């Protein structure tokens, strides 16, 4: 786990266009005041870059929306074709997309804590990369690849939480650590004596 660079594990080299800036719409068809009238229970209204284009995002206490400032059309939830395009836009490799699926329930472990639904877009590269696209704000929610999955598996072994792979405070781990620590202390103790010339003392005993 310490040998492989954590940024690589996080999939940073697989992604491009993550620092797109927003362009403030000059004379949009709908403005923020309109959105507030349209969604009176909005808690957040924002501008977000999606594939180089600045779109509106709206978050209410229950729902989220993605809209076009110039047309006022609602894009969300994004369809498969849009998810493909967004994934390709962010993917730094050349590989083709092999599979696209919408995950609405029972998420795989690698996105267990993420808000659903998410589009999963799989690429045919040597890392078995998967991009997860949020259909309600068009963002690249996260990315996973084979080495992330291996790292996650090793992390599970490391913290001995075989169910959720996230709780490093479980009793099994603590019990194992106490045992391990006992052995380490006794090992260091024995090591001390294995250097202290015990054999020489024994030889003297024969005289």
């Amino acid at each position: 786990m310490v040998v492989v660079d954590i940024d690589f594990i996080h999939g940073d080299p697989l992604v491009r266009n993550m620092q797109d800036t927003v362009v403030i719409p000059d004379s949009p068809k709908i403005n923020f005041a309109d959105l507030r009238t349209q969604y009176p229970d909005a808690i957040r209204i924002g501008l977000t870059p999606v594939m180089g284009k600045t779109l509106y995002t709206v978050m209410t206490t229950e729902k989220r929306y993605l809209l076009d400032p110039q047309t006022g059309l609602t894009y969300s939830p994004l369809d498969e074709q849009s998810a493909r395009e967004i994934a390709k836009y962010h993917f730094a490799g050349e590989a083709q997309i092999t599979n696209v699926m919408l995950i609405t329930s029972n998420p795989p472990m690698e996105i267990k804590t993420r808000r659903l639904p998410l589009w999963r877009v799989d690429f045919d590269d040597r890392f078995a990369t998967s991009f997860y696209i949020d259909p309600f704000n068009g963002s690249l929610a996260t990315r996973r690849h084979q080495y992330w999955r291996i790292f996650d598996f090793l992390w599970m072994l490391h913290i001995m939480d075989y169910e959720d792979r996230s709780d490093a405070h479980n009793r099994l781990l603590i019990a194992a650590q106490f045992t391990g620590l006992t052995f380490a202390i006794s090992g260091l103790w024995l090591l001390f004596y294995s250097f202290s010339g015990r054999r020489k003392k024994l030889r003297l005993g024969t005289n």
Partner: protein
Amino acid sequence: MTRTLKKIHKWVGLLIGVQVFLWLLSGLVIALIDPVKVSGKQWARPTTAESQTIDSTRLLNPAQLPAERLKNALGVDLMMRHGKAVYLVKRADGESLVSAVDASLIVIDKTDAERLAQQDFGGDGVIVSIEPGMAPDKETRGKKGAFWRVNFSDKANTAIYISASTGAILERRNTYWRVRDFFWMLHIMDYPGRENFNNPLIITVALIAIWLGLSGFGLLFGSFTRADFFFLNVFRKNDEAVVTLVDKKAGDSRQVKLRKGSNLFLSLATHNVNVASICGGGGECGKCRLKIECTDLPGANDIETALIPKRLREQGYRLTCQQLVENDMVLHLAESTHSNQQ
């Protein structure tokens, strides 16, 4: 081969044994400290700020703000903060708040920071001091921008870090976190930064530790003998070996039955055959050596090698206190043996 490996194993153990110990100790401490206390959530009040409906009659649209307010923004969000409608502007180098009513840049001053920290802290203590700072520092790793550090007088020495540009709570730090962080440093061996576990030192030591583990596992096979597993014989009755005692001086011999797996020295004693010894079977004096004839006499161990001359070892002399009863054997009693026949 095994001896050389043992020697290398020992020296490598000396070299990195302390770090292996520290890994286990720090891992244990990290697992034992309550994560809710480490995060400071234990003493944080629940907040509703995130779910406030945007509530303002007079709003400026983003296009009505001065251009420099939104320059290089990665995202712009209109929301309620500190009771006002604001734009939260995210940039690569941090975040800022712009009033959605008058386009002014919101700055969190010392008084604001005091109020915000007080609102968040639900623990048992009062504010003792407030100091400015710039993230990232030791306790605000991974964060950006200026902050106010608000120190509390509670037992856990809480420090709440308030962003000077957004008023957001950057971190809640306390003694639990600081202790955990110290052990985390020992765990990942990144002493100056405490965050990079891909450093060359830990990679080197980890590789050596893996070798140490593997070689130790390999050496295990050599350190166990068949005799170590004789304890399993408790499940089998009457598993005994016939030991023929030859007394050259008296010119006779007799046989005793000893339980397999038992210590030869002690087992003989229970049959009233008292082999001479000063240390009483401790492997210290070397007096209990006897000549053993046996089909597969085990090689001399370290203690026997040290206490019996090579010439005698080759003749079959062993220390009875270092021998386990494994098979039938012939034992040549020495003059010093006190054998009491009953």
